[in-house]
C-alpha cells in the first residue's frame, strides 16, 4: 500500500512537473526586423518585437485611448506647452539598473541627439526635460503640442537602459537592454530572435510564458503552413485570401483589428515640373477618379472583404473619422460628368506608379478596370518600392499608389502629408486653410474640439483630393487554438500580457 502511495505520489509529481514545463511561444513574422534599437528602428516587425522587449511610457487600448505603462499619471499645463508625468516605482531594466526620472531624461536626450536616431522628428517639439523628483518629470515643449503624448506610446516612448545605451553606443541594437516583460537572448539574422521572461518585471503576474521566439517567414503560404503544422503558435498578417480556408479548417483562430494606416493614390499637385499636368492642376479629375472606383468592390475583389473600405486618412472605425463624409458609392455617371466639366468628354489617361508587389498590382488592376468605364485610362507603371519612393519624393511621378502605416494620434496620419512643406508631402499640396486647421489641432487638448478642426480640414481635402484614400488594411493575426488571451490592436502590435499557451 505504501509502495502504491509512493508510486502515485511520484506520478502526480511527475504530472505537475510536466504541466509546468517551459512555455515557449513561437511567432511567425512577415519579415525580418531591422536593428533592435528603438532609436534607430524603422520597421513594423521591429516594433512587434519591442512590444515584448521594451516598455513605453504610455500604451494604448484597442480603442486608442492612452493608458499608463511606465508612467502612471500625466497632465498638460493649461496652454499645452508642458507635459508632466508621474513614473511607476519599482521598475528595473533587464541589466538591473533602476528606472526613474533620470533614466527617462537620458532616454529622451539619446532619441533627440544620437546622430543615427530616427526619432528626432517625433520628439521635435520637446524643448527640454526637467527632472522634478525621482519619479516626476516634465517635458517642456517648444510650442503647444498635444500629439507628443501619443508619440510616447510608440518607439519614442520606449525606455532603454541608459547605462547599457551609453556603453554600446550605436551597437546597442546587437544586445538591447530594456525593461519590458521579456529580455533579449539571441538573434540570428533572418532566422530568429529569442527573448526570455524577465523575472523582475513589474507586471510579471500577467506574463504566463517563459520565452518568445520570433521567426521571420516572408511567404504567406509558408507562414500559414508552419502554423497549421504546429511549428508556430501565432502568425503575423495572414493573407486575406487564406481567411476563408483557415476559418473552415478549424484549429486556428483569427483575431482582427482595423489598422491605423491607409492605402491610396497620391497625386503630384505641385512637386516639381511634373506637377504641372491635368491631374495635378484640376481637382475635378481627381474627384472623378474617386467616384469611378468602388472602394467596397476593391475590398471584395482583392482582399475577400477582409479589409475596410475608406475615404479618409483614418478608418471608419476610428474616433477621428468624419461621419459627415461617408465612403462614397461608386458613381460612373457622376465621374463622367466631372470629366466633361473639366474639358475631357472623351476621357483622359493617368499614369500611376505602383510597387511591384502582387497585392498592389492586383489593386491597381481593379482600379484600372473600374476607371476605364468612366473614360479614365489608367496606365500602371510598376516599380520596386525603393525606386518608387525615390521617384515620388523627387516629384518624378504623376500619381503614386502608396500608403502609410498609421500613427496613434490623428496628426501623424495627416499633418506631414498635406501641410505646406510637410516632410511627407510628396504631392506638393498647399492650402493656407488646411495648414491653419491642422496646426491649430496640435494645440488643442480637448478631443471634441480637436475633431471639429480635423473635420473642417477633411472637408477641404475631400474637395481638393491630393490623396485619394482607398482602403484600410486589417491586421489578421492567426493563432493556434492552444493560445488564449490574445487581443488584436489597431497598431498591429502583439501584446503578450495575459496570453497563455496550453500544451495540446
Amino acid at each position, binding site marked *: 500500500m505504501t509502495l502504491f502511495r509512493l508510486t502515485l505520489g511520484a506520478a502526480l509529481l511527475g504530472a505537475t512537473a510536466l504541466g509546468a514545463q517551459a512555455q515557449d511561444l513561437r511567432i511567425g513574422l512577415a519579415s525580418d526586423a531591422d536593428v533592435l534599437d528603438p532609436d534607430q528602428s*524603422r520597421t513594423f516587425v521591429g516594433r512587434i518585437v519591442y512590444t515584448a522587449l521594451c516598455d513605453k511610457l504610455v500604451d494604448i487600448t484597442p480603442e486608442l485611448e492612452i493608458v499608463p505603462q511606465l508612467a502612471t499619471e500625466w497632465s498638460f499645463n493649461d496652454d499645452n506647452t508642458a507635459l508632466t508625468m508621474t513614473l511607476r516605482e519599482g521598475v528595473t531594466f533587464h541589466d538591473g539598473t533602476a528606472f526613474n526620472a533620470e533614466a527617462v531624461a537620458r532616454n529622451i536626450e539619446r532619441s533627440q541627439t544620437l546622430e543615427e536616431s530616427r526619432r528626432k522628428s517625433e520628439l521635435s517639439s520637446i524643448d527640454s526635460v526637467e527632472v522634478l523628483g525621482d519619479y516626476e518629470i516634465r517635458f517642456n515643449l517648444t510650442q503647444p503640442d498635444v500629439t507628443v503624448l501619443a508619440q510616447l506610446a510608440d518607439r519614442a516612448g520606449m525606455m532603454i537602459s541608459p547605462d547599457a545605451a551609453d556603453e554600446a553606443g550605436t551597437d546597442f541594437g546587437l544586445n538591447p537592454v530594456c525593461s519590458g516583460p521579456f529580455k533579449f537572448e539571441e538573434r540570428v539574422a533572418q532566422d530568429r530572435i529569442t527573448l526570455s521572461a524577465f523575472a523582475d518585471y513589474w507586471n510579471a503576474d500577467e506574463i504566463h510564458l517563459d520565452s518568445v521566439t520570433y521567426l521571420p517567414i516572408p511567404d504567406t503560404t509558408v507562414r500559414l503552413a508552419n502554423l497549421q503544422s504546429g511549428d508556430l503558435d501565432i502568425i503575423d498578417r495572414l493573407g486575406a485570401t487564406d481567411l476563408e480556408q483557415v476559418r473552415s479548417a478549424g484549429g486556428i483562430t483569427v483575431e482582427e483589428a482595423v489598422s491605423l494606416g491607409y492605402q491610396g493614390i497620391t497625386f503630384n499637385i505641385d512637386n516639381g515640373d511634373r506637377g504641372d499636368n491635368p491631374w495635378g492642376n484640376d481637382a475635378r479629375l481627381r474627384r472623378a477618379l474617386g467616384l469611378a472606383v468602388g472602394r467596397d468592390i476593391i475590398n471584395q475583389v482583392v482582399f475577400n472583404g477582409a479589409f475596410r473600405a475608406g475615404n479618409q486618412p483614418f478608418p471608419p472605425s476610428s474616433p477621428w473619422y468624419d461621419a459627415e463624409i461617408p465612403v462614397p458609392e461608386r458613381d460612373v455617371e457622376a465621374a463622367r460628368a466631372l470629366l466633361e466639366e473639366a474639358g475631357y468628354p472623351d476621357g483622359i489617361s493617368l499614369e500611376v506608379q505602383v510597387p511591384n508587389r502582387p497585392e498592389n498590382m492586383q489593386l491597381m488592376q481593379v482600379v484600372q478596370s473600374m476607371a476605364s468605364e468612366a473614360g479614365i485610362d489608367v496606365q500602371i507603371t510598376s516599380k520596386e518600392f*525603393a525606386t518608387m519612393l525615390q521617384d515620388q519624393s523627387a516629384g518624378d511621378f504623376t500619381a503614386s499608389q502608396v500608403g502609410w502605416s498609421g500613427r496613434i494620434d490623428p496628426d501623424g496620419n495627416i499633418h506631414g502629408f498635406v501641410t505646406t512643406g510637410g516632410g511627407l508631402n510628396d504631392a506638393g499640396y498647399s492650402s493656407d486653410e488646411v495648414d491653419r486647421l491642422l496646426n491649430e489641432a496640435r494645440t488643442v487638448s480637448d478631443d471634441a474640439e480637436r475633431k471639429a478642426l480635423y473635420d473642417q480640414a477633411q472637408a477641404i481635402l475631400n474637395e481638393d483630393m491630393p490623396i485619394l484614400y482607398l482602403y484600410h488594411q486589417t491586421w489578421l493575426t492567426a493563432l493556434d487554438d492552444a493560445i488564449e488571451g490574445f487581443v488584436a490592436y489597431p497598431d498591429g502590435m502583439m501584446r503578450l500580457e495575459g496570453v497563455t499557451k496550453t500544451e495540446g
Partner: protein
Amino acid sequence: MLSFILRRLLIAIPTIILISIFVFALQKFLPGDPILAMAGEERDPETIAFLREKYRLNDPIPLQYLTWVGNALAGDLGISLRTNQPVLELIGEKLPVTIQLATMAMIFAMVIGIPAGILSAVRKGTVIDYAANVIALSGLSIPNFWLGIMLILLLSVKLQLLPASGYVPFADDPLRSIQVMVMPAFVLGTALAATLMRHTRSAMLSVLTSDYVRTARAKGLSERRVILKHAFRNALTPIVTLSALLFGELIAGAVLTEQIFTVPGFGKLIVDAVFNRDYAVVQGIVLVTAVGFIVMNLLADAAYVLLNPRLRS
C-alpha cells in the same frame, strides 16, 4: 601538380578583382536610394544627410570602391546597413547553412542521378531508359517553388511529417537539423539529379561501346564488374567536372529554395540584401561566392588529374 595549382590561383586574382568591380558598379546603377529606405517612414532630411555621410555615399564611386577594397584587404567587409551586424559575421553565420543545404542536395542529386544514368545507359532503349528520361525531364521542368510549396502542403500540413521551414544548426540537434533540411535539399537536388542523370547516361553510353569494355566482356568478367569497374570509372571524369560546375547552379538554386523554405542561408541573405539595397552585404557575398566558385573549379581540375592518370605528367 603544385605549380599547376599555383598558376591557377594567380589567374584567379584578376578574375576576382573584375567581378568585384563589376558588381560594385552594377549596384550603384540600380535605381532606388538605400538611404531613403533606411531613413524610416518619416524621412527626416537631417538623418538622411547624416547617413549619406556616414556610409560615404557622397564620395565618387571609384573612391567608394577603393575604400571598400582597402577595408576588405584588412579583413573588414563593413556592416549591414539594415541590422548593423558585421558582414563577415553574417557570412560566417550563413555559410554553414548553405553548405549543409548544398551538400545534402548534392547527395540527393548523386544518389538519384548517377544510378539512374547508369541504369538507363545499360538498359538503353528499354522501358527503364524511357522512364528515367521522363523523370529526369520532369525534374528539370518542374519549377522549384511549385514543388516546394506542394511538398510543404503535403508533408508538413497534411501528414505533419516534417517541419515546414526554418533551420536548426547541425551542432545543436543533428537529427532535427537533417529533418528540417530534407525538403529543401530534395527540391534543390531534383533539378541537379536530372542534369547528372543525363550526363552520366551519355558518358556511360560512349564508354560502353569502347574497345576495352568489349575486351573486358570477352575476358568473361561479370557484367556488374564491367559496368562499375571498367565503364563507370572512365565515365566518371566528365561527371566530376560537371558536379563542380553544378556548384554554381547549386548556389543559384539555393537562392530560390532558401526563399521558399525560409532557410536562413546565403541565398536568402543575398536576395534580402539586394532588395534592401544593403550594399556592404551584397558586395561581401559576391566576393565570397566568387572565391568559392574559383576554388571549387580548382578542386575539380585537381580531381580530374587524380582520376585520369593520362593527365599526370
